[in-house]
C-alpha cells in the first residue's frame, strides 16, 4: 500500500512537473525563435505576475471566504521593498532577483501579518472596507518614504536583458507559487481554511483556531502578493504609487471571481484571459472595464441561480466520480 500511494503521488508530481516543463519549453522556444510577437512575449510575463497576484487573492477570497479589496497594498509593499533592494544593492542580477523576491515577500508578509492581527474581529463588509482603506493608505504612505521616489516612483529597477530569461524567471516563481498553494490547500492546514469558510462556528466547535488560521492565510497571501509585486517590478523597471490603486485590487478580484473562487486552475485560466483580453477584443478597448463589471455581477448571479447550481453539482458529481475511482485505489 505504501509504495502504491507513493506511486500515485509521484505520478501526480510527475505529470504536473512534466506539464510545467513542457509549457515552459514550448513557450521559451517560441520566444527564442522569435515566433511570438514582441507584444505577446511581454504579455506572457505579465500573465505570470498577474496570475501570481490573483492566486494570492484567491487564498483569501476563494479559500478563506473573506473579501480583501486591498491586495494592491501587499502587491505594492512587495514591489517597493523588493525592487528597492535590487536598486540599492550591488549584486549580480540573479542574486538581486532572488534577494528581491525574499525581501519583497517577507516585507509584504510582515505587513499582511500585522494588518490581519489588527482586523481579526472584523468580518464580511467591514473587512472588505478596511482592506480597501488600508490599500489606499499604503499608497499614500509610500509617497513619503524616502528613497522610494515619491510621486514619480522608483526608477531604474534592473531587468533581464534576455526575454527568454525574463520569462523563465517569472515563470519559475509562478510555478513555485502554484505548487505551494496546491500543497497548502491539500493539507490539514488547507482543510481548516476551507472549514472556516464553510462554517466558522462549526470549525470552532471542532477546535480550530479561527484567528490563528486567518492570520496565517493573510500572511501567506501577502507573501505571494509581494512576490508578484517584485516580479512585476523587474519587468516594468519603474513602479509608481499609481500602479497600485484600487483598480488593481478590483482587477485581481475579477480574475478570482471569473476563475470560480477557490480553484487554482480556474484562477490561472481566468487571469490569463483577463490579461489577454485587450488582444482578444481588439477594437473594443472601451468596453473592457464594462466587461469586468458584468463578469463580477454575472458570476455571482450564476452562482446564486438554482439552475446553474444544479448544473454545477452535476459537474462536481462527475469530477468526484473520477476522484473516487482514484481514491478507491488508495483505500485498498
Amino acid at each position, binding site marked *: 500500500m505504501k509504495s502504491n500511494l507513493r506511486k500515485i503521488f509521484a505520478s501526480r508530481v510527475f505529470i504536473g512537473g512534466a506539464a510545467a516543463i513542457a509549457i515552459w519549453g514550448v513557450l521559451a522556444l517560441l520566444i527564442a525563435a522569435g515566433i511570438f510577437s514582441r507584444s505577446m512575449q511581454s504579455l506572457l510575463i505579465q500573465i505570470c505576475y498577474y496570475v501570481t497576484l490573483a492566486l494570492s487573492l484567491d487564498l483569501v477570497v476563494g479559500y478563506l471566504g473573506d473579501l480583501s479589496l486591498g491586495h494592491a497594498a501587499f502587491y505594492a509593499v512587495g514591489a517597493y521593498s523588493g525592487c528597492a533592494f535590487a536598486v540599492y544593492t550591488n549584486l549580480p542580477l540573479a542574486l538581486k532577483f532572488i534577494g528581491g523576491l525574499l525581501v519583497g515577500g517577507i516585507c509584504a508578509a510582515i505587513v499582511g501579518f500585522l494588518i490581519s492581527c489588527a482586523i481579526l474581529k472584523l468580518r464580511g463588509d467591514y473587512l472588505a472596507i478596511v482592506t480597501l482603506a488600508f490599500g489606499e493608505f499604503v499608497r499614500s504612505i509610500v509617497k513619503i518614504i524616502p528613497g522610494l521616489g515619491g510621486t514619480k516612483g522608483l526608477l531604474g529597477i534592473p531587468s533581464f536583458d534576455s526575454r527568454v530569461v525574463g520569462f523563465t524567471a517569472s515563470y519559475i516563481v509562478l510555478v513555485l507559487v502554484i505548487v505551494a498553494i496546491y500543497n*497548502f490547500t491539500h493539507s*490539514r492546514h488547507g482543510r481548516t481554511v476551507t472549514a472556516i469558510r464553510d462554517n466558522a462556528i462549526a470549525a*470552532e466547535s*471542532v477546535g480550530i483556531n479561527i484567528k490563528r488560521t486567518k492570520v496565517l492565510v493573510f500572511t501567506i497571501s501577502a507573501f505571494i502578493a509581494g512576490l508578484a509585486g517584485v516580479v512585476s517590478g523587474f519587468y516594468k523597471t519603474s513602479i509608481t504609487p499609481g500602479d497600485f490603486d484600487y483598480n488593481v485590487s478590483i482587477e485581481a478580484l475579477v480574475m478570482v471571481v471569473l476563475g470560480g473562487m477557490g480553484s487554482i486552475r480556474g484562477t490561472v485560466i481566468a487571469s490569463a484571459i483577463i490579461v489577454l483580453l485587450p488582444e482578444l477584443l481588439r477594437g473594443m478597448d472601451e468596453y473592457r472595464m464594462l466587461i469586468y463589471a458584468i463578469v463580477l455581477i454575472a458570476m455571482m448571479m450564476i452562482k446564486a441561480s438554482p439552475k446553474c447550481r444544479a448544473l454545477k*453539482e452535476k459537474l462536481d458529481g462527475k469530477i*468526484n466520480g473520477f476522484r473516487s475511482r482514484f481514491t478507491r485505489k488508495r483505500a485498498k
Partner: protein
Amino acid sequence: MSMLKVENLGITFGGLHAVENLNLEIEKNELYGLIGPNGAGKTTVFNMLTGVYKPTTGKFWLDGEELTGRSSIEINRKGIARTFQNIRLFGNMTVAENVLVGLNNQMRYGLASSFLRLPGFFKEERDYSKRADELLAVFDLYDERDTLASNLPYGKQRKLEIARALATSPRLLLLDEPAAGMNPNETAELMNTIRFVREKFDMTILLIEHDMRLVMGICERVTVLNFGTELASGETSKALNDPAVVKAYLGD
C-alpha cells in the same frame, strides 16, 4: 466523581435570565437528556458548555477540571464535542474531509510539511484518512466519503455531524436535537447509532431532544427545563411524570 458537573450555571441577555441556577451531574458512560419546551434555554446551555457564550453565574467541570469561561477551542481540546440544532457542516468539502477537519487537532505535521510535502505529511495523511474511513464506516457513510457534504440527504448529514464531533476524540458528546426532521424509521435507526456510539467509543452523551420516544428509548436520566429553570430531573420515566413537567408540556 461525575464526568460533567454543572453548578448554579446561569446566563442573562440584556437583563433577561435565559438560564438560571442549572445543576447537572452526569456520570461516565451515561446517556443524559436535556428536554423542555421551545425557548426553555436548552441550546443556551449547550452554548455555555462549549464556550460559545460565557456564563454569567455558576461553574462547570469536566472530570474535575473547571472549564467555565474557556474558549470553544480549549473546551473542545479538553474533550467536549457537539453537534448543532441547525446542521452546520462544511458544505463545500467532502464527507471524508469533514471528518478530517475533526481529526485536525490530533495531526502533528507542521506548515513546512504542508508546503514541501515532507514524509511526515504522507504518513499522517494516510494514517488519518484511514481513521476517518473507519469512523465513516461506523456511520454507514463510507460509500459517500467523496460526496460533498451539502449533497448528502438530511439524515446522513446529522450522522456526519456526529462523526465529525467524534473525530475530535471527546469524552463528552453533546447532541443538539439529533432527531429533528427525521421520520420514525430514521429516528429508530438513529437511536441504534447513538447506543452503538456509546458502547463502541465508551462515550458519555448529553442530548437535547423533542422526540419523547427517543428520549424515553435511550436516556437513562433527564433534566427538564422551562423558562431557563430546572423543573425536574432524575430517572427518565419519573421525571417525565412529574406534575410540574406535565403541566409545562400540556398546560393547565
